[in-house]
């Protein structure tokens, strides 16, 4: 980086000012520093002596301040405080408040006096308004301009009246006040927020913007689509203003965390690669800088800067520096001298120059100049004697080539690359274990007053030592070039000295790579990852944009650093900030809301700023009130926390001294220190076992018994489990349940036996009370166990046949069980009908065995919504259904008409029901039949209804709430599953109805060869005829079997495999090509089901 240590400046430290804004008056005499507590006026001619302090009482700081730019009203200034503008006159060391201008509804972000109208000042605010005020009329603004978004900056054009610019996040608007509330131009300048804006003082079309996206961009507003030039500074830029001379721009960046780079940079507009000069000195963020108006005839300019380090610095920008910005001094004589020196001159010409003092008329003037400049601020203009010595020393000056040769003899210095055309040299310096690659650029005028620029390319030195090296170099070189002597040799001597010293600082450094590693780690830490901007407003391929630090951070919640989450069943996972850390903020302060608030915590000195940042409005204004934090700082939440031992890190100097102390320690120690620090930053994640306070227990889940056939034993064991868990309530509960499930209390199937137990006070109501209690404490384990114990299982009765059965477990449960009462609570009407129907048809068909070969059928079962089935009207209708509606039930549940047809044909003529069914392939017909038969038997209906009622009353659990109980059981099964108790989970699920949804499976029932009833087991339960005879051995098949789906023949799997390895046709000789028929492909392509 091009650097030059500028020794000619004056520093005034003003403690306790805590000013947030600074302004220099147009006469160049007074600087106003405005803070929350007071206004301080500093006489620039005697900055150390003359200060006037005016205290103010306000809870708000001052956002911005500006002096009137007209000499006639130079004593007048305006301050912006929160939403109000205040006008003051400053006379004879006292400030008089003139008036307040109030109209803004949110914080004012900038003010600017009109350069053309002495009475007009513009102000802008986050409330989206820009106002013009006439100071003679303080009641209301004279002009109002509104935009859709908040305004960050407002600046009058310096050349022409009737033009001003405002910034809105990343956009710039150019306005003509005469044209009212419509901007004359929009510029989408940056992808991120613009912090600074300035108009050129020469060209009315030119302006410069500085933005969070790390660039400074130059614009001609007549061409808003293209930015004329762009400087990428690598850090978010806070301000960029044109220099009053030449084509220069001064910028100040927002420094990255812990990097001491609070420098101002001077750029030449056409050289975007590197700054031409760096003003090094400030120890903290530079808040404001302004040019001081110069006295007549003085060529040097002065830059006034105010920084958070509470120092006011005055920098002299001499003509050589001005020249770097392309400013040609108009005075001929001087210009000639400069020009002539700029090229290597033959010695005789130089001598000629020396002999003719009249060619240097400027020096005489310069001689007078310091006297007129009473300030004495850096007024070390050359005098005659120095000038003469310069001339004489010039004779001894060497050319670059000679200097190179001279350097080559130095030990530890190696010339790596020399480009005399471009006047650049690259050296490698080696001292002890340290090395440093440097690149030097020699300006044309070197060594006349202009030192070479130094850039460190690569080194294993600490960044602090690097800084030291740069500083040493700048000092040494500037001393020498002032005398117009070559400086390289001296500089290198000094640098090598520094390197040697640093070597002793880091004594125990084992090898250089360690240091290198550390440096690369550091670099990485500071390296902010660049992401591509979504859209580049200037059409450049990729503009680096920081993912954070953007405006939107104010909407992103503050990161969680502490949390506890219940996981699985018994665990509470907890993470938090380690106990050794505490919040940077005071304990009384509540944690901020948004990520953007973090910015205020990353500046250790910004206590005053932080105090303002609690409200939403001021957290936004933070972006205006001071340089915002950089991406890195925002990203690291850890900056919100600090070690408990350190009270607070209010002073950067303190921090620095700490780090210096550390520097002295051994490297190993440092590593350890860092490691331990890292450990501290991240706490352990703790996993708690919360089972002692949980209401469910894995132990119980494992050991609870559930056997409905041995309820007494179940209750006994469960009470024991409860006593082991020390749950007294559960011991009592299980004892009670034992009594409630006593054999004597079993409901009698006989209606005449009186009310069942469930109907009595200690029946269902007691159970309900118990359930309610455990519902309240959300003890799902106990609830589920109760549900299971009192669950009325409708036991499947396997020996009841159904012509078409599904393999759904659901159905088997719901098949008719009881001779006296076919009615059960079922979840689906379809099932009920089906179940009932099959039993009645079985009864009907019993005496009529039909000669028919066993016909295996493959029937997909479709779950049917009750609404689509005609039999879903009422349950009481199923009596009638028994006689006439069989087919309908089948139609409803069995879409496979072919099967139905076969079934129907087999029974043709044997019963009226079948007769009907034969005719009833038409839907409507069968429905009519059904209705007619329903009306025939109202008495039966009544009886059935009563029975149904009775049956429901026998149940301990309210059938109305059935689905609710099912859910509890499922929830508990799920919990058991989470514990990994798979068997127990499945056991609980066995006690559920499987929900209302039917499972889609494929069943393969066989009809009895003898009596053509359906066989579910190995033999017909009626005629004991085997379900399947093996086609090979003619024995009945028990165990594994294989059946052809086309012809229905089959047998033992082993026999079938044996046969079909050689043959492809049916072993019975029926002519079926079984292998071919049964191939899956065949099935799919022909859609063969039967």
């Amino acid at each position, binding site marked *: 980086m091009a650097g030059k240590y500028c020794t000619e400046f004056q520093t005034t430290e003003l403690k306790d000012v805590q000013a947030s804004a600074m302004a220099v008056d147009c006469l160049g005499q007074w600087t106003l520093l405005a803070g929350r507590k007071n206004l301080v006026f500093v006489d620039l001619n005697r900055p150390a002596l003359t200060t006037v302090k005016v205290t103010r009482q306000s809870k708000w700081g001052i956002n911005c301040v500006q002096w009137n730019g007209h000499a006639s009203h130079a004593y007048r200034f305006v301050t912006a405080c929160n939403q109000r503008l205040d006008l003051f006159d400053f006379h004879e060391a006292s400030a008089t408040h003139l008036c307040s201008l109030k109209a803004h509804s949110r914080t004012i972000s900038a003010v600017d006096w009109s350069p053309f109208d002495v009475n007009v000042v513009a102000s802008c605010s986050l409330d989206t308004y820009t106002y013009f005020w006439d100071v003679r009329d303080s009641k209301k603004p004279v002009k109002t301009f509104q935009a859709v978004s908040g305004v960050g900056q407002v600046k009058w054009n310096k050349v022409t009246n009737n033009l001003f610019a405002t910034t809105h996040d990343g956009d710039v608007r150019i306005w003509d006040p005469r044209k009212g509330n419509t901007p004359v131009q929009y510029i989408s300048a940056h992808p991120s927020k613009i912090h600074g804006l300035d108009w050129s003082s020469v060209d009315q079309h030119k302006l410069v913007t500085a933005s969070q996206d790390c660039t400074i961009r130059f614009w001609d507003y007549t061409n808003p689509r293209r930015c004329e030039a762009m400087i990428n500074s690598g850090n978010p830029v806070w301000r960029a203003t044109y220099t009053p001379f030449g084509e220069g721009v001064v910028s100040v960046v927002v420094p990255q965390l812990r990097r001491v780079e609070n420098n101002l940079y001077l750029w030449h507009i056409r050289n975007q690669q590197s700054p031409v000069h760096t003003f090094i000195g400030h120890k903290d963020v530079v808040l404001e800088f302004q040019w001081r108006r110069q006295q007549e005839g003085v060529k040097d300019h002065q830059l006034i800067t105010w920084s958070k380090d509470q120092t006011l610095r005055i920098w002299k920008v001499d003509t050589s520096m001005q020249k770097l910005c392309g400013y040609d001094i108009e005075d001929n004589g001087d210009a000639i001298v400069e020009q002539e020196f700029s090229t290597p001159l033959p010695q005789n010409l130089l001598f000629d120059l020396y002999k003719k003092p009249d060619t240097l008329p400027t020096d005489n003037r310069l001689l007078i100049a310091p006297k007129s400049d009473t300030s004495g601020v850096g007024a070390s203009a050359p005098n005659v004697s120095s000038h003469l010595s310069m001339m004489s020393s010039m004779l001894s000056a060497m050319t670059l080539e000679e200097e190179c040769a001279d350097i080559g003899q130095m030990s530890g210095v190696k010339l790596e690359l020399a480009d005399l055309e471009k006047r650049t040299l690259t050296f490698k310096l080696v001292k002890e274990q340290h090395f440093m690659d440097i690149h030097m650029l020699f300006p044309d005028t070197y060594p006349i007053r202009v030192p070479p620029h130094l850039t460190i390319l690569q080194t294993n030195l600490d960044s602090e030592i690097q800084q030291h090296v740069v500083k040493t170099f700048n000092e040494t070189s500037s001393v020498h070039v002032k005398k117009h002597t070559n400086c390289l040799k001296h500089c290198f001597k000094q640098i090598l000295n520094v390197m040697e010293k640093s070597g002793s600082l880091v004594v125990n450094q084992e090898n250089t790579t360690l240091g290198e590693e550390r440096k690369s780690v550091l670099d990485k830490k500071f390296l902010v990852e660049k992401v591509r901007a979504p859209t580049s407003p200037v059409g450049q391929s990729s503009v680096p944009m920081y993912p954070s630090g953007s405006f939107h951070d104010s909407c992103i919640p503050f990161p969680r650093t502490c949390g506890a989450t219940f996981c699985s069943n018994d665990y509470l996972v907890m993470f938090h900030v380690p*106990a050794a850390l505490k919040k940077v903020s005071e304990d009384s302060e509540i944690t901020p809301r948004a990520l953007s608030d973090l910015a205020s915590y990353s500046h250790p000195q910004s206590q005053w700023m932080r105090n303002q940042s609690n409200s939403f409005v001021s957290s936004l204004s933070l972006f205006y009130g001071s340089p915002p934090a950089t991406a890195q700082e925002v990203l690291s939440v850890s900056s919100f926390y600090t070690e408990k031992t350190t009270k607070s890190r209010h002073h950067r100097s303190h921090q620095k001294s700490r780090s210096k102390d550390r520097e002295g320690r051994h490297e190993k120690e440092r590593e350890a220190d860092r490691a331990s620090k*890292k450990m501290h930053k991240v706490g352990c994640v703790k996993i708690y076992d919360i089972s002692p306070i949980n209401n469910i227990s894995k132990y119980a889940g494992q050991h609870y018994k559930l056997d409905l056939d041995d309820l007494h034993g179940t209750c006994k064991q469960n009470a024991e489990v409860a006593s082991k868990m020390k749950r007294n309530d559960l011991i009592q509960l299980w004892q009670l349940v034992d009594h409630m499930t006593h054999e004597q209390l079993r409901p009698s199937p006989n209606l005449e036996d009186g009310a069942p137990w469930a109907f009595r006070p200690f029946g269902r109501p007691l159970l309900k009370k118990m359930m309610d209690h455990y519902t309240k404490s959300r003890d799902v384990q106990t609830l589920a166990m109760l549900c299971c114990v009192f669950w009325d299982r409708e036991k499947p009765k396997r020996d009841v046949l159904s012509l078409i059965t599904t393999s759904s477990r659901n159905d088997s449960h719901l098949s008719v069980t009881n001779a006296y009462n076919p009615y059960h609570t079922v979840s689906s009407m379809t099932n009920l009908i089906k179940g009932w129907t099959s039993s009645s048809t079985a009864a009907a068909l019993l005496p009529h065995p039909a000669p028919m070969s066993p016909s295996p059928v493959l029937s997909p079962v479709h779950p049917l919504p009750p609404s689509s089935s005609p039999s879903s009207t009422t349950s009481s209708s199923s009596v009638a259904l028994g006689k006439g509606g069989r087919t309908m039930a089948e139609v409803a549940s069995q879409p496979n008409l072919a099967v139905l047809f076969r079934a129907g044909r087999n029974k043709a003529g044997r019963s009226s029901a079948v007769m009907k069914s034969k005719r009833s392939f038409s839907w409507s017909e069968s429905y009519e039949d059904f209705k007619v038969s329903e009306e025939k038997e109202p008495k039966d209906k009544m009886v059935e209804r009563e029975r149904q009622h009775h049956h429901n009353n026998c149940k301990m659990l309210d059938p109305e709430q059935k689905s609710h109980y099912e859910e509890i059981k499922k929830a508990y099964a799920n919990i058991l599953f989470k514990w990994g108790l798979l068997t127990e989970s499945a056991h609980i699920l066995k006690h559920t109805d499987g929900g*209302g949804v039917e499972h889609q499976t494929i069943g393969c029932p066989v009809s009895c060869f003898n009596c053509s009833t359906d066989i579910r087991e190995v033999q017909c339960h009626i005629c004991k005829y085997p379900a399947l005879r093996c086609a090979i051995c003619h024995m009945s098949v028990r165990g594994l079997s294989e059946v052809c789906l086309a012809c229905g023949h089959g047998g033992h799997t082993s026999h079938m495999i044996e046969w079909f390895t050689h043959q492809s046709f049916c072993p019975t000789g029926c002519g079926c090509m079984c292998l071919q028929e049964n191939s899956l492909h065949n099935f799919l392509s022909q859609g063969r089901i039967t």
Partner: protein
Amino acid sequence: MASVINSVDTAHEDMIHDAQLDYYGTKLATCSSDRSIRIFDVTNGQQTLITQLRGHEGPVWQLSWAHPMFGNMLASCGYDRKVIIWKETNGVWGKLYEYTQHDSSVNSVSFAPHEYGLMLACGSSDGSISVITNAGDGSWDSKKINNAHTIGCNAVSWAPATAPNSLFDSQSVQQGLVKRFVSGGCDFLVKIWVEDNGQWIEEQKLEGHSDWVRDVAWAQSIGLPKSIIASCSQDCRVIIWTNDGVSNSWTSKILHKFDDVVWHVSWSTTGNILAVSGGDNKVTLWKENLESQWVCISDIHKGHGTIGERPSSG
């Protein structure tokens, strides 16, 4: 009473923002400002680092495990506007899918109950909520609720698959489960969203907080008709919202006003204990007694070993 059974040193380089155990409680996933996610095997008290997942370009805010029926799958969201779904295949963790349709930081991610299939919701600071579904054939589909919360959405939480309202309504049982989730945002609101014909519509708007809502949690169903939601906010309050499962109205009850902002609420499996954590680095556990009063049963202070039971008033 409750004791630490495992203390995992994550070795993250920066603050941890979320830690989650998987379904069985055997794997621990943590995410941090250092842009990485770490997965540990914590079976039987061990703490073996299984893998470190890198892919986010900013701090990672939240994690969510999928149901084990989908394999070992983890979703993460972060400051870099990304939602990444990670999956273990043959013992190797890798990126399965990356969702990048949000315009700002994604603050919350949550897998839906497994009954809905592979589905997750994420809330972002751009104000929108995305519901991402896997069609089953490997392709991913997303539905975005734009402007769900003005300024930004901070949290999402799914309702249990057995939404109580459907229990008594056999129609809805037949038609399938009603999908619902709750979200909280910078507009101080808690909103309940329901899927209707493939579209997400706002069913309820719960007003009660006076600052940003930081987290919401829908309690697991234990087969009861009652729905319970807990929400916490920057206004230092935790509110318990209940619905009786019959009507459409929600009643609110302030659990407690804390000293500092509340960041996170979490329900235990059976919904009887609520864990509350916030900016003051403390965790408190709350339980509802039989008189329907919420009482604090314990404090966990800055990582002391045990959760001591506090004598409860009920």
